[in-house]
């Protein structure tokens, strides 16, 4: 209060009076200023969310809807490929976020060293992030073709007969996950670069005084002190992995058969089939699952961060 009274005194008295009253209501702005954002929030976020919870309980053809209670949830859980979908989703999230952490950290260390062309190399790592995911998917589909693709031709030069990466049930999901890592590792690297650069030099000097070598510097300074970065990378890429869809859809469409289906692609296929109520129920379940995994993860990782 005192601070506001000490503010500019040039304005006319009534305006000043109003200002004081507004601050008594603890709002920084008059309501009219909140309104546009509130309307947008209500119309395009809140209303659809509530409607989604309602339509998940209906048989919905876009033309009309019939209330069916929890039948959609029963049907969704009876989906024959749901178990594959869950297992694949988890596998995909773990593989991509794990590799992004490891590669991101190593690249981060490399790109904070005294390299020539450091700025250029940093942007090169980041370029794949800027390319549209669908374009990346199409490009790699061509590169991974069994007979004419560049990858298998290169392997043939060293005498390896490469598999049909995306057409073979054993390699399809892993191939997509690796492409996802290639595309997403740039963000992890940038986060690590920021994290490593924010570590005070003093620690490294302390290790040097104690006679520690390069491994000690990495193991006992860089690794623990870049924990906030690791935390962000794990959380971001894990959530990304759980709801991953675009790359899988452009590269394999969940195939061959159902072998690379994830929860998101199962839901999309139900939407495509015109089962709108059912796929909405699937989305509600995905929402609950992601929350159930991410909230504890966030809590656990956050606690470790606070402990540091």
């Amino acid at each position, binding site marked *: 209060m005192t601070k506001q009274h000490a503010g500019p005194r040039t304005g006319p008295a009534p305006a000043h009076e109003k200002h004081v009253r507004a601050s008594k209501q603890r709002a920084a702005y*008059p309501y009219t200023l909140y309104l546009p954002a509130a*309307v947008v929030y209500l*119309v395009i976020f809140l209303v659809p969310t509530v409607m989604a919870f309602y339509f998940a309980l209906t048989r919905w053809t876009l033309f009309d809807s019939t209330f069916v209670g929890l039948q959609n949830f029963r049907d969704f859980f009876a989906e024959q490929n749901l178990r594959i979908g869950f297992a694949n989703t988890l596998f995909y999230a773990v593989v991509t976020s794990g590799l992004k952490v490891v590669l991101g950290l190593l690249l981060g260390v490399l790109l904070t060293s005294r390299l020539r062309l450091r700025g250029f190399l940093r942007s090169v790592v980041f370029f794949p992030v800027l390319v549209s995911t669908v374009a990346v998917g199409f490009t790699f589909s061509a590169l991974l073709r069994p007979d004419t693709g560049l990858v298998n031709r290169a392997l043939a030069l060293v005498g390896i007969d490469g598999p*049909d990466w995306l057409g073979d*049930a054993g390699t399809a999901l892993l191939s997509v996950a690796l492409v996802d890592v290639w595309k997403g590792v740039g963000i992890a690297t940038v986060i690590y670069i920021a994290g490593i650069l924010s570590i005070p030099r003093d620690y490294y000097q302390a290790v040097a005084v104690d006679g520690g070598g390069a491994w000690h510097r990495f193991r006992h300074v860089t690794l623990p002190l870049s924990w906030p970065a690791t935390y962000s990378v794990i959380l971001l890429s894990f959530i990304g992995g759980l709801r991953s869809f675009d790359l899988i859809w452009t590269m394999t469409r969940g195939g*061959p*058969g159902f072998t690379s289906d994830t929860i998101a692609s199962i839901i999309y296929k139900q939407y*495509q089939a015109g089962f709108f109520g059912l796929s909405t129920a699937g989305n509600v379940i995905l929402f609950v699952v992601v929350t159930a995994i991410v909230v504890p993860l966030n809590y656990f990782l956050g606690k470790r961060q606070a402990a540091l």
Partner: protein
Amino acid sequence: MKTSHRVLGAAVAVLAMTALTSCGSGSEPATDGTVTLAFLVDNSQATVDTAKALTDAFMQANPTIKIETETRPGGSEGDNIIKTRLSTGDMSDVFWYNSGSLLQALNPAQTLVDLTGDPVLQHVQKDFLPVVTQAGKVYGVPSGTAMGGGILYNRKVYDKLGLKAPTTWAEFMANNDKIKAAGITPVISTFKDTWTSQLFVLGDFYNVQAAVPSFAQDYTANKAKFAATPAAKAGFDHLAEVHAKGHLNEGFGSAIADQGMKMLVEGKGAHYPMLSAQLPPLVATMPQAATDVGFFGIPGTDPAKHGATLWEPAGLYIPKTTEKLEAAKKFLAFVASPAAAEAVNKVVQPAGPYRIEGAKLPDNAIQVAKDLQAYVDKGATAPALEFVSPVKGPSLEQITVAVGSGLTPPAEGAAQYDKDVEKQAKQLGLAGW
């Protein structure tokens, strides 16, 4: 002060709401008397070419009507675009869409203009009407030609190896062995385009209904199942058998339909389970496609009962939301006339017989169309299951990929499909499920 805030707030809210809701369509009437029709078609080459031939001929005859064609993706992605645009009232004045079970899912009574008894239907063959009819009301006219779903085969390869078109599955497999021994891929499969994997199952329906005439009816009424009907399960068995014998091309899991057609026309592969409509667009770039590729129905067990499964042409429909009904009907009447068939014949080779009275195949029709016409003339054709039953599971293409890649045994695949069908029937709210 408070009240004025509220008034202002309410005013902003109302403004925002009107701004958000007023994005609807508002088409202006043309000033010079010409009417412009919007026409939505799928983006397959065959459809685009046919649509262009139809609109060009129509606009020449009717200078006051202009037609603007827009394209959409095919498959289930396209189905959703159609459903969304119909339900939001944003549909073009005329649109091209499948007949049969897919049309039934559009809720035509509520969304489409009823054409029952309308003069636009005067040239349409009577036996086409059931696939564009719901609850006794007719909603569309046939666009393009019927097509065959079976085995496209390279006749040059057959000549070279001294083979003849098989009439039983055993003969077909014997041919495959000889073709393989000659170093040619016996059966082309292109599972990256998942829809192409369904032909062994869907194209086998002629044999199913020959063995079990009541199958379609019982299947719709939830009484007959694929897994429990040997004739219906045969399609899944066939898929598994050609894979188990190693008859498929290398990299079949990531090959696409265009690559498959190219292999067939060039004689690198001998058989391709496919729709005959894939052929006409190739004639322009590979003229030998017109003569070297023939068609036979998927062979069953009894040579005396050999026949082919027929896909009815798609239809043209008018949504209730159109403001140019008269012009739209004029266009439909033209499309369903022998003159339209002649115009199309000049540009696109028909892939099968027309469903319009008085429309004929051209003398230089491609070989697959002639082969198909021979089946029609013999009376040895049956419409595919999707034209006689509204029940079709959406996951068939994934299941057939899994069975055809040896990932799922055929009996399990058939049972999976029965479950998939049940889900769809429940979602459609069909009686008896």
